[in-house]
């Protein structure tokens, strides 16, 4: 659906915001775009949105070069939230819809559907400033999806929402994914990204540092450690060959094993010497991966901040 091929952008003053970045998003796929503040996420997104033009590289949507016309099939929820405070919900949505080339009838239909969906049914005539923050965010989300875009770019869609509304939003996004929309999801909330995205794209200092599925990017970060729950004396554990006992906490221990044995052999060996209650490989979390990649870079150049 979206094909971004080695795009670069240098701003006047010589600051290279994005350097030869590539990514692609398929229909029905959610790509998580992650990176510290100032890493180049917004610039990348603005180029995809055709708000600014890349100096180099190409952006293709459905195989065709992205142009002004592509704006009509992209939906965008910016991170910075803002609406016309004095205007009514209906009028605001009608404006954004008409800018995307929708006709009046479709705008009405879709507005009705989405307002109903977000428990705002019949509130078209209400002024935006009368709404709670969460409800304003719903209106913005509706503005991004009203025209049934094929590509949806959501920048921190869940921030500032209460848990109930978060669930509501997540369901809506999942549903859009099922419908075959290509979705770019920018966030700092790594846990929600981990459960939500199919593919991850990590950008730092304008360069792509990681790209792939969770499984792919985890590969390089496995630490050959497992968590063991046991009954009895811990000293048996320290006698298992090719392993080192890293820590013990009550009836749970962290065991590091070297690459000469595989995990199933290890399980057998542990079960032979003691009563096992559970054993599991420690999977590197996205946060862990993120931190090690970014901090690896930080140590090289000593800049950048990550929240």
């Amino acid at each position, binding site marked *: 659906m979206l094909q971004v091929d080695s795009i670069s952008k240098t701003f006047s003053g010589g600051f290279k915001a994005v350097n030869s970045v590539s990514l692609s998003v398929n229909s029905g796929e959610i790509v998580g775009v992650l990176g510290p503040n100032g890493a180049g996420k917004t610039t990348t997104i603005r180029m995809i949105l055709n708000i600014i033009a890349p100096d180099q590289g190409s952006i293709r949507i459905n195989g065709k070069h992205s142009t002004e016309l592509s704006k009509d099939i992209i939906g965008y929820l910016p991170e*910075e939230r803002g609406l016309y405070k004095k205007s009514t919900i209906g009028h605001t949505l009608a404006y*954004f819809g008409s800018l995307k080339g929708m006709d009046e009838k479709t705008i009405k239909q879709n507005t009705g559907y989405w307002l109903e969906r977000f428990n705002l049914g019949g509130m078209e005539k209400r002024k935006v400033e009368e709404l709670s923050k969460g409800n304003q965010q719903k209106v913005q989300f509706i503005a991004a999806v009203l025209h049934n875009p094929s590509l949806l770019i959501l920048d921190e869609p869940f921030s500032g929402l209460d848990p109930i509304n978060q669930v509501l939003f997540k369901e809506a996004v999942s549903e859009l994914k099922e419908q075959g929309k290509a979705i770019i999801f920018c966030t700092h909330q790594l846990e929600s990204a981990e459960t939500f995205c199919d593919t991850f794209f990590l950008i730092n200092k304008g360069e792509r540092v990681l790209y792939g599925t969770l499984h792919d990017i985890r590969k390089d970060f496995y630490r050959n450690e497992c968590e063991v729950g046991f009954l009895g004396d811990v000293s048996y554990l320290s006698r298992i060959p090719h392993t080192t006992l890293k820590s013990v906490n009550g009836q749970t221990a962290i065991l590091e094993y070297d690459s000469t044995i595989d995990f199933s052999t290890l399980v057998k060996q542990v079960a032979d010497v003691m009563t096992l209650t559970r054993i599991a490989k420690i999977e590197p979390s996205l946060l862990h991966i993120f931190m090690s990649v970014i901090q690896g870079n930080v140590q090289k150049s000593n800049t950048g901040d990550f929240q």
Partner: protein
Amino acid sequence: MKLSKIYSVGYWEFTEKVRTKSFLVSLVLTPIIMIAMGVLPTLMGLKESNEVKTFAVLDKTTQLMPVIERSLSKKYTFDDGTPMYKFRNLASDLGSEKALDKVRNEILEEELTGLFIIPQNVFTEKKAEYYGLNVANERETERFFSMLEETIISLELGKNGIDSSLCAKINTPIDKKLVKMTPDGQENETEFYQQFFSGYGAIIIVMILVITSAQLLVRSLLEEKNNRIMEILLSSCSPSELMFGKLAGLGALGVFQAIVWMGMAVIAGLGFQKEFITLSNMPLILLFGISGFLLFASLMIGIGSSVTTEQEAQNITGYIVMLAVLPVMFILPISQEPSGTIATVLSYIPFTAPMIMSCRIVLQTPPLWEIALSLASIYSSMILFMFISAKIFRVGVLAYGKRLTLPEIIKLLREK
């Protein structure tokens, strides 16, 4: 650029702004305030107060005052026939210090309006004096002094054996009738004030149209910049579509406003049985109004997109607004001489042209080539400003939190 997107932006700007309370209030209140500011002081100045005013007169000739008093009491009366002025003749005291002191106190306590002194040698020296707390009451002093002149003349004529009634005959002023001619052969009886207010009205209508619409433009740009709606807008349309859409929407709003005001002027004209504005002039006034808006808006759009706060915007737009207000100062010389040098020169300076031309069109429609030249001057500068503003706009609207500096703007303009 897609017309449909320009239309969407324009439609939004128009419908959103037209239903705001502040717009409706200004639509109704502005003409009222303008009329109040321009017309009321004059009307109030023209209107006679219904208070009897008392003056002390020291007539050292002793023979003039009785005649003057008689004539003034006859000439200036209230509706019920009572004289407007009363005089206290100090002739009997012949200006003793005591009497003058008393008069001075009475003037200070506002029991007397003032004191006229007619010296003995008034026939030869032609000098007289007036003392009062307020000497700007020209109407009263003028009436007295001209009656004094008249009386002296008739006395002198009498001395020389000429009938004094001749003097009254000679002094009767000519009843002026002013007929305004138009090239299409229409001739309308008119008055100076009617002419003056029509010209004034035309300038004011165009000026307010330009200022309010241009300021609405800056405010709407700033709002969208500050609450980041700009991002949503630019992900839906191009900067040029947005810019032209705003110009179209707010321009239409200005036209709507001007039409309402001109309608009010027509209705007011019907009420006063006078024609302040002729229907045939309206399209030209609207044309200059809209041209003026486009010119000022082309400047404002660059400014609005390069600043980040309302204060910064006001600092700069203040100067531009002053440019738009400037023509008001020229109303008098222009209504005296609508085709004079001042009027002609100001018609070709782009910033004053829209207002001055609308004024001239009302007073004495200039030849077509002058109108065309004036429009050419407005539009050529507009295109230049638009070109500069569009460049600033592209970058400025996405630059948050920091105002574009002059060097940055110059750099932008050099970029291709």
